[in-house]
């Protein structure tokens, strides 16, 4: 998508990179499980030129085999850089084990052999399937009158037709998990880590706010349960918990980076014990209220700059309902201690878990 389109490209001196750099923009693109987004933060006076380029590359992209060849090794190096990080490797293996059938089984960047062997015809097919206006949302945030922004989008995207075929939906359903799963990663390294994942509902489901509060109670700050039992006891350098909510499903992940000398078994037992304690005894109103206040403050911080606003908004668009950008804070504020205990009981069952250990082989 950065190799040029019919009307905007390097030889013409007006490619997306050249245009945005010449206008002092901060720009890039990211891919995730459900969506790809292209973004730029730039002065209002430069917006029209950027909209024109984005509209052109939606349907007029250059897809040359020579460009694909050069880009393959670029993306492979991105993949290789990710593999340098032990926790990335562990998380990919845990997620691949947790999801057997649904496409979330695959990491976002894909497998090395797929990167190396994908053909330009396959890229063309993907592009022609998904890059259509009826499968896209343009978001514009900043110092601009809505009517002006909408007119710009109409001007450049208005002539692009709908896709000739319906945008395909994923029909695969994840089968029911029939027992606890485990993975172990052995690679040269220094310190171990443990990750426990549980499949949870998709981003728009009603239990997500309570699961998000549960993650914060477990891991946010020095008074969190995992800090007190793992980090403060010198068993972990860091511990985390949270829900990764996606369009079709999510996972609730609990992690710990082991301190020198700490045993995987002991750390895992403590992580599980803390979850069981919440299931049996619940959480306090103080704990929940604290998370709600923190979330309110985070909402204010999240309005600090257009890029913060648009990245948050985009994730809700990807999840399927942009109005959650406005409504979700109220959903968090309505979470009760009973909700947190209920979702812990409902979703964090051992026989629905996938546990991963990173066990380093000593190297120098």
């Amino acid at each position, binding site marked *: 998508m950065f190799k040029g389109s019919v009307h905007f490209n390097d030889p013409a001196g007006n490619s997306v990179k050249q245009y945005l750099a010449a206008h002092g923009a901060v720009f890039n693109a990211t891919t995730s499980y459900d969506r790809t987004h292209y973004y730029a933060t730039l002065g209002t006076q430069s917006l029209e030129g950027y909209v024109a380029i984005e509209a052109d590359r939606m349907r007029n992209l250059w897809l040359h085999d020579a460009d694909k060849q050069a880009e393959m090794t670029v993306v492979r190096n991105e993949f290789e*850089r990710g593999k340098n990080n032990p926790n990335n490797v562990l998380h990919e293996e845990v997620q691949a084990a947790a999801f057997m059938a649904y496409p979330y089984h695959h990491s976002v960047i894909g497998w090395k052999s797929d990167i190396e062997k994908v053909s330009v015809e396959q890229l063309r097919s993907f592009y022609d399937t998904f890059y259509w206006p009826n499968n896209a949302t343009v978001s514009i945030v900043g110092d601009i009158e809505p009517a002006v922004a909408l007119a710009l*989008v109409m001007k450049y995207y208005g002539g692009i037709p709908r896709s000739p075929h319906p945008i395909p939906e994923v029909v695969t359903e994840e089968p029911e998990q029939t027992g606890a799963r485990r993975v172990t990663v052995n690679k040269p390294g220094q310190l171990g880590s443990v990750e426990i994942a549980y499949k949870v509902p998709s981003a728009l489901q009603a239990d997500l706010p309570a699961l998000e509060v549960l993650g914060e109670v477990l891991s946010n700050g020095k008074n969190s349960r995992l800090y007190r039992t793992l980090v403060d006891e010198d068993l972990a350098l860091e511990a985390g918990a949270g829900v990764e909510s996606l369009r079709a499903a999510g996972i609730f992940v609990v992690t710990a980076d082991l301190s020198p000398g700490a045993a995987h078994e002991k750390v895992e037992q403590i992580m599980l014990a803390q979850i069981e304690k919440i299931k049996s005894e619940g959480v306090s109103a103080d704990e929940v209220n604290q998370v709600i206040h923190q979330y309110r403050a985070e909402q204010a911080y999240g309005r600090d700059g257009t890029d913060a606003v648009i990245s948050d908004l985009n994730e809700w668009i990807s999840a399927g309902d942009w109005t959650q950008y406005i409504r979700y804070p109220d959903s968090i504020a309505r979470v009760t201690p009973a909700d947190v205990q209920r979702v812990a009981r409902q979703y964090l069952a051992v026989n629905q878990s996938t546990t991963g250990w990173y066990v380093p082989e000593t190297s120098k």
Partner: protein
Amino acid sequence: MIISTSNHFFGSIRFGGCISVGVLMIMASISHAADISKRIVRTSIAGIDVIAYPTDIKDVVTIAGALPAGDALATDNIAIASLTGMMLDKGTESMDKFAVAKQLDQVGAQLHFRVGEQALSIRARSLKADLPLVLRIMADELRHPALSAGEFAKAKIEFSGSVQQRTDGTEYRAAEAFSRAVFPAGHPNRQPSIDEWHSAIDNASMAEMKKFHEQFYGPAHMVLVLVGDLDIPKIKAEIKKDFGGWSGGLPYRSAPKATASNTPVDHVVFLAAKTSVTVLAGEATGLQFRDSDSLPLRVGMAIFGSGFTSRLMSTVRDKEGLTYHIGASIADDTFNDGDWRINATFAPSLLDKGMASTQRELQRWWKDGVTLPELEARKNDLIGSFQVGLATTDGMAGTLLSTAQRGLPLSWVDDYPRSVEAVTLDQVNGAIRRYVDPGKLVIIRAGSVGDDAAASR
């Protein structure tokens, strides 16, 4: 560009090929660059250099601060500065760490300390109503940390573990080796080795830590920048109340300039089973940020290695496909002379090709210089991205802090676009020839160098 979220409108509509369009209008007051310094309030309160910049954002205040208490100042035991910094949020004389954290967490306020080469950095963020609480806790943690034996023992374990964790990272190991090859012993930018860290942590004592805190923690050279929804008279009163009566503090450490190596260095840090090699290549510049040749060299370096349109990215990545990331920049020149460096990653099997391409581009840039069209395009990029960076409270606070730390007047923020515009082609190409010498390059490669099969497992 200063942005307010006081009024906003969200519209959503579908048209054309049914694309969805969302427009969130944020009423923004565009501050032209020349307006910034006029709105800054700078004053000394209780000996602290306080810089306040009010913006139109509602309810949010961001703080960036620093004082000289970094690793380079701990000359007896190199681990003491970091260990002292780690103790700040581990309780005060009047509250344990859980009580302190609870006060901040209950209102969603953030307060963090980080020890760098020269400075203890302070970052905080809160809602406007909670700023007095944040300032009070910040002052208590800086002035009256508990410094208990139990927490000190925990800090040593945590620090030792984090050093051990870094041992396996190609980026950290490349940076460590690069700084040790470029800067002589005793230079503030020279990083300790992994073994030196472990030895220092093992030997660190409570007495050394308490002595370091007493010597270096004070208002004398501390800068505190506040940006956002500010009630400035109230903030002044709070700072005076919380920090009044505090004394002490020593300046940042200056050191003789490092000189470029007389002979090239090519060093490998081997790490097993790494699928990507990190490369750092560069030299000492002998320049500080505020030196007159610094800006022309920075502009030339940006043409060479900053962003997607730089020479390195457009050739080594885009045309030849040899790397995901390659860039070039100037670093570590805030308090003393710094370095310039190329930073890249390559698959072990493409390392030789990648290095050859990088060297070719370096030679071309150094020998032929940059062109006038490149210079003009880069000026727009530098000015525009600088202004985008000032559009958040965090970006503005960080810029004002670094401006003060560099010993520059705050009007530099207004002057920067004009300074960039004024840079000439001769200045840029002259600076490249004066401060870069490809024949004396220090090259560090960290990863599974020469072990392609193991790296691809």
